[in-house]
């Protein structure tokens, strides 16, 4: 079986008796013709407009050995093997290959009516590993983004009254960047990620269903260190308000426990460079494990207090409607969740045979302990490989081998975190929370791989 596919560069792993002798002959014939069942059917389906139909994507890559015994891409040396390339620093800040132009963050059409209070989704289907390239980081702005002059940006710390903080202080960016700093990898997920899918399937791809998720290495100063400079009454000041400098001056309440753990950072660095303007340049709060809305951008002020603040985004939005008609308030933690990013909705598998199912898992309560993958709609599961290092409140990449037999398959992943919490199915989640919560949807995602190779976003009953 292993040598049956003579096309170059194609690794087709197959279990014993994957196909019989007759099958082998068929495969040979099809390989010669450069197509497989579903491709041929696809051709039949498109016969009406056949004149205009060029080779499908699969054929373009399948590239069987031509009659004259060699691949023209090998036999005819390309320009880049015969000419002189470009010089150093042609781009002072390098850009992705022009062949990667499809990999973009995108808004979901019709989701919002202004571009300033809106969201763009990270293209999870095209990303590897755990780090989100900064230029592809998802965006959520509440009143438009700004490129703030760091020399004029200030951070103020004060108390809701004078008894809670002895010395309110002001810091410049220069001062903040002189302080002892830490660098840590964390995921950020919008509380409304997957929010469109509570009741039914609403979007086609993982970019729109899960793309309000990104992961970066953040560099900054623990907020605790800054508060310590100001003489905080930690006994009474159990709540922290973070406030942005943009038009919305976003505010969110953070529990002091999280600040005291040292995890909450006042960050200026992201993936080795400064924060991008869309992500809060020059200063944002990093609140590991908590929904993105608390990671206040353009951070200008921290206030300590003895009560929560009921800010707009914790009293009108980011409240989760439960079946009894009441809203959950101050819901902040992003619970354990995972999603298969490849193969995923809207994609087209090129062929039968071997695939690496790959995806992301994360938990706002700590490390991911395990991820199981099912290809039969949740009846049977196999443990996936977790790619290290596995870090707390950080994306974890998982991979698992799969040989697609060309039959319909429903691919799912299910993560368990170190607290023992298991990612629920839609049925389990809805039984408790109904379908109108908008926020905190961490259900198991299902992708239906159809016989045609096209993958659809589906939900199971």
């Amino acid at each position: 079986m292993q040598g049956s596919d003579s096309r170059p560069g194609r690794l087709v792993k197959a279990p014993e008796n994957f196909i019989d002798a007759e099958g082998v002959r068929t495969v040979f014939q099809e390989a010669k013709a450069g197509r497989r069942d579903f491709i041929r059917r696809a051709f039949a389906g498109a016969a009406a407009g056949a004149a205009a139909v060029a080779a499908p994507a699969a054929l373009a890559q399948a590239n069987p050995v031509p009659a004259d015994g060699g691949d023209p891409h090998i036999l005819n040396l390309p320009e880049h093997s015969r000419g002189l390339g470009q010089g150093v620093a042609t781009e002072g800040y390098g850009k992705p290959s022009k062949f990667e132009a499809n990999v973009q963050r995108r808004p979901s059409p019709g989701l919002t009516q202004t571009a300033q209070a809106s969201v763009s989704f990270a293209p999870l289907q095209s990303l590897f590993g755990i780090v989100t390239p900064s230029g592809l980081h998802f965006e959520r702005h509440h009143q438009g983004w700004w490129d703030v002059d760091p020399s004029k940006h200030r951070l103020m710390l004060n108390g809701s009254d004078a008894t809670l903080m002895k010395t309110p202080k002001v810091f410049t960016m220069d001062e903040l960047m002189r302080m002892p700093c830490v660098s840590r990898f964390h995921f950020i997920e919008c509380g409304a990620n997957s929010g469109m899918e509570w009741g039914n399937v609403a979007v086609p791809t993982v970019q729109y269903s899960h793309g309000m998720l990104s992961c970066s290495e953040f560099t900054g100063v623990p907020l605790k260190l800054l508060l310590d400079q100001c003489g905080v009454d930690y006994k009474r000041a159990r709540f922290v308000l973070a406030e942005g400098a943009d038009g919305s001056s976003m505010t969110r309440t953070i529990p002091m426990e999280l600040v005291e753990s040292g995890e909450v950072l006042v960050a200026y660095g992201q993936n080795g460079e400064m924060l991008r303007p869309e992500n809060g340049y020059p200063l944002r709060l990093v609140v590991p494990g908590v929904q993105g809305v608390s990671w206040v951008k353009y951070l200008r002020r921290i206030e300590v207090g003895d009560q929560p603040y009921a800010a707009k985004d914790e009293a009108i939005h980011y409240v989760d409607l439960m079946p009894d008609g009441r809203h959950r308030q101050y819901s902040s933690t992003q619970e354990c969740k995972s999603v298969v990013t490849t193969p995923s909705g809207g994609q087209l598998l090129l062929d039968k045979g071997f695939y690496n199912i790959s995806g992301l898992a994360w938990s706002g309560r700590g490390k991911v302990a395990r991820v199981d993958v099912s290809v039969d709609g949740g009846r049977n599961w196999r443990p996936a490989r977790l790619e290290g290092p596995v870090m707390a409140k950080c994306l974890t990449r998982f991979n698992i081998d799969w040989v697609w037999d060309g039959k319909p398959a429903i691919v799912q992943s299910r993560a368990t975190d170190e607290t023992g919490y298991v990612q629920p199915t839609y049925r389990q989640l809805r039984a408790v929370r109904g379908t109108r919560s908008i926020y905190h949807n961490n259900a198991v995602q299902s992708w239906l791989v159809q016989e045609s190779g096209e993958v659809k976003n589906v939900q199971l009953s």
Partner: protein
Amino acid sequence: MSSSRKSVAAAAALLLAAAGVAAQTALPGLGRPATVKEIAAWDIDVRPDFKGLPKGAGSVAQGQDVWEGKCASCHGVFGEANEVFSPLVGGTTADDVRSGRVARLTDTGFPGRTTLMKVATVSTLWDYIHRAMPWNAPKSLKVDEVYAVTAFLLNLGGVVPDNFVLSDKTIAEAQARLPNRNGMRLDHALWPGKGLATAKAPDVQAKACMKDCEPEPKLASMLPDHARNNHGNLAEQNRLVGAQRGADTTRAPGAAAAAPAAVVAAAPAAAGQAPTALLGKSGCVACHAADSKLVGPSFKDIAAKYAGRADGAHYLAGKIKSGGAGVWGQVPMPPQTLPDADVQTLARWLADGARR
């Protein structure tokens, strides 16, 4: 200091570093005390117990004036508009004002949720209007205007009477009548702290079954075929190399995909294409969208209106520079201060059909 003592000191310093940032690290020379004036300028938050609320007052009638001038263009004359933002008012009843629970929220058939159906704390409204409204000129309202417009909003929702004057003295009365004031719950395990009366254990308890877990899976929901291209052509939203391609959603399911066109880098906007960067940079898109009315008319509608006009570009350049009202409704467009070359580019683009 002997070398051994030196190394002990160095080890101690290393230990400190390893322990992370020590609890009370002093940072001499960094930061300075904030002045009273600075704190007053930035500390504008108002809590549910009204801590932080400045003295002031505004009536429902005064609020109506502010509303019509600065709020109605986005939120509708009665706070009901769904054009730009979710509606603020609607869905609450006199019974809700009495009970403090919005009954409609239990009705799964009721479309959407207005702000007054959700908000449980009147401080939230005051704080947010004060810090973030109006949309394109946040923090421009005076304190009394914030009181007035909050009063008007509450009056629209039947929370306070027509003759109500909202002030730092009367705001507790408004709170006591807020329709959803008893509508929040904290019994979840999603607050990573101890200061709130939240639950300890997660509400949903799943188990990691591995074998023969579920019956034959049944599909309950998927996108209908007619919606397959609603998010644009997915073939253009996937990498052109690798295990998969994006499905060509401009074609029926199962149809062959178009040949992957030779990939070209995104070309700079050609003549006649939208000067997208300029529209964004100049703030046009705060009020105008490509195809639909926002605060102002869509670019498409503007282009259509002046399509046949020989001096269209000249006329539109004038309108951009000096603003105006009355042509598209009574919401005025303020004069725009942008470089003349940019004005000309935008006007020409509009006059040429506002192509994307």
